[in-house]
């Protein structure tokens, strides 16, 4: 039976204290660093998921987000390339809806059930922006969740799935809108969220021939930390015993990634035989009933939700957050702007730049990034084996903090040595400058280097190892 083969997640290292936004706020929300977006977070969650999984059986990658960096230009291809999936991988973007993540999961289930793909990786990521001062600003967090859908060796079978749609303009962004809009909240909760979710939940339970009491864990999308209790009561679940913690105080509502991330959190705790009800929201609802198999315990090495949530740094400074979101213009050093990227060169070097491939000399064994035509050590021409560096352990060889960098002040720049060979000059992100030391263990993370002339330019940076 089709189901979830493996999972991964990504929660940014940075959290913003809600008190920093306004007095009276409580808890934190996960916030993408200035060099992160839906693409980088999807790649990070994908790397988490694939850290112990086979890439070659993946025949499709679906990317879901309401905050894709491009209106036109597929992002799933970018994520697939960074995750080093084959060029024959089917790719599609799901967008414009909070339900895009679960819609992609349903499409993936259909594909693997029909036999047109062995496995499909669904990556959902979002970083939605609430206007400063709005409740959205308090509630919304950033993050990504990944599920690999397959037809064999599943960790959780999908027993039933059910969808309803509801033509309602409750929460939206029009083309060109930077911030979320919404209609009056009593209406949108009553006739939007509660109505559609209840409909889908009862529909899927009926299809699975189950009652609310049969459910071990109900994983429910919620606009904020409170509404889920209201829904649980209406749907017949015990909010305390049955409902998955919505992580409102630790992370916030991560948009179309939220349902996937909450499911990953539930799967981390699930035991074989557990029955999970899972429902998302957005112009209707997608609901699923899943049953954990004896393979549910696999993947303990992944960071998933627990380890990512535990590894954090709290930003107490709201001004920095506004700068990161480009909501507060700031003076910059008098240095030339980055840019002038060549798209033909970027295309030619896509594996080198996006999947961080270097070359290992077949004659002398020296690993070089990027791969050279002529070996730097033994001068042999064109005898290299490709080697992917991004999953290798790394450490600081030397470093500085550069106060003349045009984008980030200071930018920590390090010469990074990889285990097994390979050296690279990388920016160090998600770090505290004065904590960097020679020999410090590092890992690499896919980041947005800059945005110029309509081009989002992605590359790898180093980060201190997240626990």
């Amino acid at each position, binding site marked *: 039976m089709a189901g979830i083969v493996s999972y991964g997640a990504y929660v940014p290292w940075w959290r913003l204290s809600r008190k920093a936004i306004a007095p009276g706020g409580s808890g934190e929300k996960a916030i993408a660093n200035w060099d992160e977006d839906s693409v980088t977070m999807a790649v990070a969650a994908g790397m988490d998921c694939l850290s112990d999984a086979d890439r070659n059986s993946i025949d499709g990658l679906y990317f879901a987000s309401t905050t894709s960096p491009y209106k036109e230009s597929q992002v799933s291809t970018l994520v697939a390339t960074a995750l080093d999936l084959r060029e024959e991988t089917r790719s599609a973007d799901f967008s414009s809806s909070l339900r895009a993540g679960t819609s992609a999961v349903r499409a993936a289930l259909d594909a693997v059930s029909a036999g047109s793909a062995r496995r499909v990786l669904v990556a959902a990521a979002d970083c939605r922006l609430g206007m400063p001062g709005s409740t959205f600003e308090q509630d919304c967090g950033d993050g990504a969740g990944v599920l690999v859908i397959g037809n064999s060796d599943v960790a959780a079978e999908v027993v039933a799935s059910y969808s309803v749609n509801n033509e309602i303009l409750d929460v939206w962004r029009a083309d060109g809108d930077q911030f979320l809009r919404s209609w009056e909240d009593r209406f949108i909760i009553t006739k939007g969220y509660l109505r559609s979710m209840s409909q889908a939940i009862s529909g899927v339970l009926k299809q699975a021939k189950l009652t609310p009491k049969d459910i071990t864990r109900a994983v429910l999308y919620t606009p904020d930390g409170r509404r889920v209790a209201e829904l649980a009561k209406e749907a017949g679940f015990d909010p305390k015993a049955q409902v998955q913690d919505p992580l409102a105080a630790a992370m916030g509502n991560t948009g179309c990634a939220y349902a996937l991330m909450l499911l990953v959190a539930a799967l981390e705790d699930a035991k074989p035989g557990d029955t999970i009800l899972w429902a998302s929201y957005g112009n209707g609802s997608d609901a699923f009933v899943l049953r954990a198999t004896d393979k549910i315990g696999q993947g303990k090495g992944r960071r998933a939700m627990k380890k990512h949530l535990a590894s954090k740094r709290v930003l107490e400074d709201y001004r920095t957050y506004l700068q990161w979101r480009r909501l507060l213009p700031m003076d910059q050093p008098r240095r030339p702007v980055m840019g002038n990227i060549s798209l*033909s*060169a970027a295309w*030619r070097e896509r594996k080198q730049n996006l999947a961080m491939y270097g070359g290992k000399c077949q004659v002398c064994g020296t690993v070089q990034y990027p791969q*050279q035509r002529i070996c730097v050590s033994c*001068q042999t*021409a064109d005898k290299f084996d490709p080697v992917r560096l991004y999953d290798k352990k790394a450490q600081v060889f030397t470093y500085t903090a550069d106060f003349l960098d045009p984008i980030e002040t200071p930018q920590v720049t390090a010469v990074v040595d990889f285990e097994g060979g390979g050296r690279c000059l990388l920016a160090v992100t998600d770090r505290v400058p004065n904590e960097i030391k020679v020999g410090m263990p590092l890992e690499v993370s896919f980041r947005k280097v800059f945005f110029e002339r309509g081009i989002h330019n992605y590359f790898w940076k180093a980060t201190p190892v997240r626990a």
Partner: protein
Amino acid sequence: MPGIKDKVAIIGMGCSKFGERWDSSHVDLAVEAAQEAYSDAGVEPKDIQSVWFGTLFSGFAGPTLSHALKTQYIPVTRIENFCATGIDVLRNACFSVVAGAYELVLAIGVEKLKDGGYTGLPISSLDPDDTPKAFPQTAPPAMFAVYATRYFHDYGLSYEQGKHVLAKIAVKNHKHGTMSPKAHFQREITIEQAMNAPMIAWPLGLFDCCGVSDGAAAAIVTTPEIAKKRGKDYITIKGFGISCGPKEHILRQGYDWVHWEESVRAAKQAYDEAGVKDPRKEISIAQVHDCFTSTELITMEDLGLSKRGEGWKDEEADFFTLEKGGLPVNTDGGLKCFGHPIGATGLRMTYENYKQLIGKAEKRQVKDMKLGLAHNLGGAAGANVIGVAIVGRP
């Protein structure tokens, strides 16, 4: 008489495929040209003692090349002299050998233009004096078109007559390009196609303009003594000329705009050094800087290959074709069809002259080869740097 005639030899050359090399970087192009040159000369990369490297846009300074070829801590000097970079690279490499500083050096020019994201060159102004940035920012076709306009006017050619002359040049160079396996464009065109092509900068149309290409070319330079000992074919330098002018064309009324004084002067330097008295008779073939068909036309006169004002008659009479010409010009297709990767062009011209002189020009082979001339023009038309290199058998 000072000079370097026959004091330096070229024992091997290489040239990459020219064209839209989307799968290749400047490194790939440099490796392709250098490896052919090493192999042609029968030398190992480690035998090279110094490198002269030319590019206009594809990198900076010597390390661009040492990083590409992994040369082992030997000197690499980057030369940049606009589109005349290639000839100046060769000239400096040759001078170092004549001076006795080195015995085996590499001269290489590389240009990766197609990563620029623009049609044509990736910058707007070539004039460092243009501080107000208020003068019209003419792209190269317009810079050269104004010379064609004046040429038609001064020699009484109607638009149709002038276009017909230019079309003859385009047809000739396209024909030659079909005989060059490494050329960017390899198809013949007709006079009608050339004359009726879309206008780019009046009176120059699409087929009056050269290719914007990626490519690299390289030469291995040594002393004649070493070259002779090897017992293989080689060529020697007969004369070089490089000329940069004082910007007369735009600062002084009376400059005629139907010639480039820098070409005349560079040619004179090279002819004097080579001992050429009557170039139209003595030069066997010429590879000239046909960035535009009108540039070839004017250059024929500047080099003394045609009489002043009569270049158009020679073109009409097919005097410069491989097929029936008395003095074949742009035998490999020229910039027009072989392509124009800036830093490589002067070396590509010399590559063709070298192949012709050692009898390896295949379908293009010209008989009784004595002297091959390369004319390499850089800069905005009028504000030029022009290089001329004459090579021949030892």
